[in-house]
């Protein structure tokens, strides 16, 4: 058998959009600079799609994030499945009203008459020296908004499958892409790969400790788990994939088995997704817990510019390893 084809995250996003547009004529794209005329998007995710599907279905917009999300919502009410690009996650702050008060709520407030099947793709992450206004991980906000689905892939193949699922889903989905690892490669999935939303993925089975994460830290965790296995430490690794709705069962069942857990994310620690995961574990697996669930996250600070500070700000793979070892120390 020949080597599997390898693709980058960026290629994965493009593949998912391409397949979705080919499969369903109601899938349309909008966002700043996304058309081929503009070079196919600042991150090239949409490059080539205008040529394939026409400028009607791949619309470059003015710099108007409220209008971008609003237009996506409106089009979705009329039967389209728009995929809106918000260039950096920090810019979604200008469109929060459309996302939170409208996209997330219109299905509920209309008594079910008007679902809002939009997907918002955005990109973020610290580590590129962009400083405080281009790097925030804000997934916890959206997870705190009933009605929104929040999805973060940890491999190119998952990126394809999850983005396809978001686009086909009848709820508004926020799909978050990592800016730092966008050219990291992974195995390409088969055509029309789709991964169900709302299900966490037990990537690696283990018996000593459960590590729960999503997105970029998963790339650290895979290596750490493999290295610890050499030492005889058996780590169960769960990739949430969907942050909200959160798959409590998969998490809790794992921790009931292992009795120990670490939750890791890139977002700042306090009031982040990790807190919710911990809260559910301690509520539903209390009697199984042999040591406190530990959180690994970035520091509670604005993302600094200087490289040295940015690294100091960020969660580290070594923090995750240390946390795992610490949970194992007790009792």
């Amino acid at each position, binding site marked *: 058998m020949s080597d599997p084809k390898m693709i980058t995250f960026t290629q994965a996003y493009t593949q998912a959009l391409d397949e979705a547009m080919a499969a369903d004529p109601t899938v*349309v794209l909008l966002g700043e600079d996304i058309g081929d005329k503009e070079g196919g998007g600042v991150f090239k995710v949409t490059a080539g799609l205008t040529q394939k599907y026409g400028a*009607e*279905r791949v*619309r470059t*917009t*003015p710099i*108007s*994030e*409220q*209008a971008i*999300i*609003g*237009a*996506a*919502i*409106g*089009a*979705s*009410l*009329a*039967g*389209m499945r*728009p995929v809106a690009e918000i260039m950096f996650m920090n810019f979604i702050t*200008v469109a929060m*009203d*459309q996302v939170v*008060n*409208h996209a997330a*709520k*219109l*299905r*509920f*407030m*209309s*008594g*079910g*008459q*008007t679902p809002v099947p939009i997907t918002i793709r955005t990109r973020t992450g610290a580590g590129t020296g962009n400083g405080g206004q281009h790097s925030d991980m804000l997934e916890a906000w959206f997870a705190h908004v*009933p*009605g929104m*689905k929040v999805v973060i892939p940890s491999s190119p193949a998952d990126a394809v499958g999850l983005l396809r699922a978001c686009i086909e889903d009848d*709820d508004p989905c926020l799909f978050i892409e990592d800016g730092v690892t966008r050219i990291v490669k992974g195995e390409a999935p088969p055509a029309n790969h789709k991964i169900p939303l*709302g299900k966490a993925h037990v990537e690696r089975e283990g018996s000593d400790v459960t590590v729960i994460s999503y997105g970029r830290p998963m790339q650290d965790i895979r290596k750490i788990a493999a290295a610890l296995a050499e030492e005889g430490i058996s780590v169960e690794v769960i990739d949430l994939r969907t942050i*909200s*709705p*959160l798959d409590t069962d998969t998490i809790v069942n794992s921790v009931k088995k292992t009795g120990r857990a670490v939750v890791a994310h890139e977002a700042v620690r306090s009031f982040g997704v990790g807190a919710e995961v911990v809260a559910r574990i301690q509520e539903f697996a209390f009697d199984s817990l042999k040591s406190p669930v530990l959180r690994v996250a970035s520091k509670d600070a604005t993302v600094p510019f200087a490289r040295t500070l940015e690294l100091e700000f960020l969660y580290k793979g070594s923090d995750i390893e240390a946390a795992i070892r610490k949970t194992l120390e007790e009792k």
Partner: protein
Amino acid sequence: MTSPKAYSPEVLLNIYRTALKIRSVDSGVRGLIRSGNLMLAMHPPTGQEIIAACMGECLEQTDYLVTIYRGLHDQIAKGMPVKKIVAEYHGRVTGACKGKGGPMHITHRESGVMVTTGVVGSGMPIATGLGWASQLKGDNRVTVTCFGDGATNIGAFHEAMNLAAVWKLPVVFLCQNNQYAECTTYEDATASKTIAERALAYGENMVGVSVDGNDPESMFNAMRKAVDRARAGKGPTLLEAKTFRLSGHYFGDPSPYIPKEQMAEAFANDPIVKVREQVINSGIATADELDAIVTQFEKEFEEAVEFAKNSPFPELSEVTTDMYGVA
């Protein structure tokens, strides 16, 4: 296309009939609140009926409407069954939104009432999306988005206007300029002399028009033109309909901030009274016929209230339906 092309006595009567219907429901609801029979945060459209009626007269059922918390008149004019509204106000499962939306969040797909928003300005970007979908599908629909004068000071207005102009969308931006934004006067918040002139910031694709919204002929003709223009693919219109809010911002607001004389003058010009004269003078209907129409609407309102009161409340499980639910 079934909506009339040209203004005529028949059109005037249609408009007035719709205005009467709106007023009857509006008064009826206010009566229920006043008498303690209904607890409701309500933003009455009193005095703005002619605008909505003209809009309704120019639209097809399949056209889309996006309106605001002060939207009762728009919803009725767009063809929503009164009992769906009244039952929603009563929080019953037979309401337009099963009681889950409430007066500030009315949706009724069949009538094309796609969104009612409680957030100032937020309907406009959504309207551009509805227009965009029509443009993509070539389905010939027009989207109307209603909002107040105050709403033209918020960012969403600007973004939606620019997008609609650049993309030449089939959208009518219908600004109901009632001279107040809650308690703040037009002048204290809005830098431009008129709302219509704000269209100048959006190039040739956008047309700005200002009319007396309480005058059926001017209002109908302006609306007709804007709707036709949108349907013909010629682009959006910012239509400013001048009017006055014959009520507090919400029912119960004593409006101390409105000068007494201004209020008195406005009441003296209540369009329901003024346009009644026009209708009678046109010969299309007699005073008695109009009275009969009013009586009929009052009866229909009473029936709607009965319907609502006899309807069940939503199941408590509705709290977590119509969304993905997090168990």
